[in-house]
């Protein structure tokens, strides 16, 4: 699948929500824990060799689950491949919890849920749709359930 790599690399150089050196272990059987610079930017987690400018890779943080493995470790698992875990090792319990929270909140879909919730709460409290003044009430992305039907499952 093609993707706009150059632009993604450019994105990886932008200021991040959170960045730290963590241990990172890939999902494959032989993978070992390695020290990586991990950067959270929008809904992507970029990871770099600690002395390099260009990222080794990026993980899109949608349709994934973040779990606490133990005091210092958390894992990211993608829903389509639940057996494959990316494991991260932090330096402290606090850091581990902070990263977990940050990654959960980094998904676009998570933000969308919040927005839908806020919108309906504000409507309930004030009787007004808060998005109306911006002329974006009808935008599909702000609806509680999108006007569009879900995509049909791919043919098997």
């Amino acid at each position, binding site marked *: *699948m093609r993707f706009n790599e150059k632009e993604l690399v450019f994105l990886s150089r932008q200021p991040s929500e*959170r960045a730290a050196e963590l241990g990172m272990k890939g999902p494959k059987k032989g993978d070992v824990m390695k020290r990586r610079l991990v950067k959270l930017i929008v809904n992507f987690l970029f990871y770099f060799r600690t002395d390099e400018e260009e990222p080794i890779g990026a993980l899109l943080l949608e349709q994934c689950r973040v779990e606490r493995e133990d005091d210092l470790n958390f894992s990211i698992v993608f829903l389509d491949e639940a057996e494959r875990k990316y494991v991260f090792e932090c330096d402290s319990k606090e850091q581990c919890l902070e990263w977990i929270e940050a990654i959960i909140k980094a998904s676009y879909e998570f*933000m969308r849920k919040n927005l839908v919730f806020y919108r309906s*709460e504000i409507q309930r*409290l004030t009787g007004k749709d808060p998005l109306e003044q911006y002329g974006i009430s009808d935008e599909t992305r702000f609806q509680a359930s999108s006007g*569009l039907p879900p995509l049909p499952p791919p043919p098997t």
Partner: protein
Amino acid sequence: MKLNERSVAYYATCSSPPDKTGFLLKKGDRNPAYHRRWCVLKGNLLFYFEERESREPLGVIVLEGCTVELCDSESAEFAFAVRFECTRARVYKLAADGAVAMESWVKALSRASFDYMRLVVRELEYQLEEARQGATSPWAKGRGKRPLVHGGGERCGAGGGGGRGGAHPRPTLCVSRASAPVGLQGSLSQDPEVSEEGVLSLGNLGKENGVSWNKPLGLANGVGEVGVSGMVWEGELDDGDGEIPPPIPPRRKTPGGSLESPVSPGTGCFSKLHDWYGKEVAELRVEWLQSQ
């Protein structure tokens, strides 16, 4: 650079509802001809498939740090372009099958970025905070809390997350730059009367006012609270290249049409409000001292 492509493709085809779908003509990566592609916009990702029934996308365009503009094309009518800021970046040329579709796609793509969504979420968080303060006595919540916080040093309303450097376009709540400003852009223009009380920022939403959701939303991404432990800010609000700061959100009006709190009249002016809160704090302090 590696990408978790399989999972990205899964996101494209999974049952979460897309933001927009339709056929678009897309100019080839190397081939200058336009090809018809089935396009699916989800969040900040534009996927394109060879056919509507295709199992996997041909590719994806990550829509961060880009602008969408109308463009003239000799080979296609109703053309528009997705342009990225980085040097030697690609320009993705697309064309819709009619004026209505074109406008609809341009709007949808302009608002697709994560930054934009975050902006709107923050705005609603702020409005919810206001609505809740209106609904209950301000004294039920944290004492001495200032509902109006001066925007200095924090990201005002329309600021993008993380105070990105000049290279990254600041998201605004307006439609694509090519079209005439609609509704929002007008209302976000600099209010010449903005005084201290008119500067609304989204700071101090407070963990105290955690929304009854499953996560403490007071800690949402990018909230300008330096106090939040561990948050790493790598950008600066002022990127120093003379770029105009994001426009301040319009003054909010209560149903009565003034900025005055329904609970504390005469406090339309920030300094009066400040004094009023200050008095209450002083009284509480005295009460406490007396109880010792």
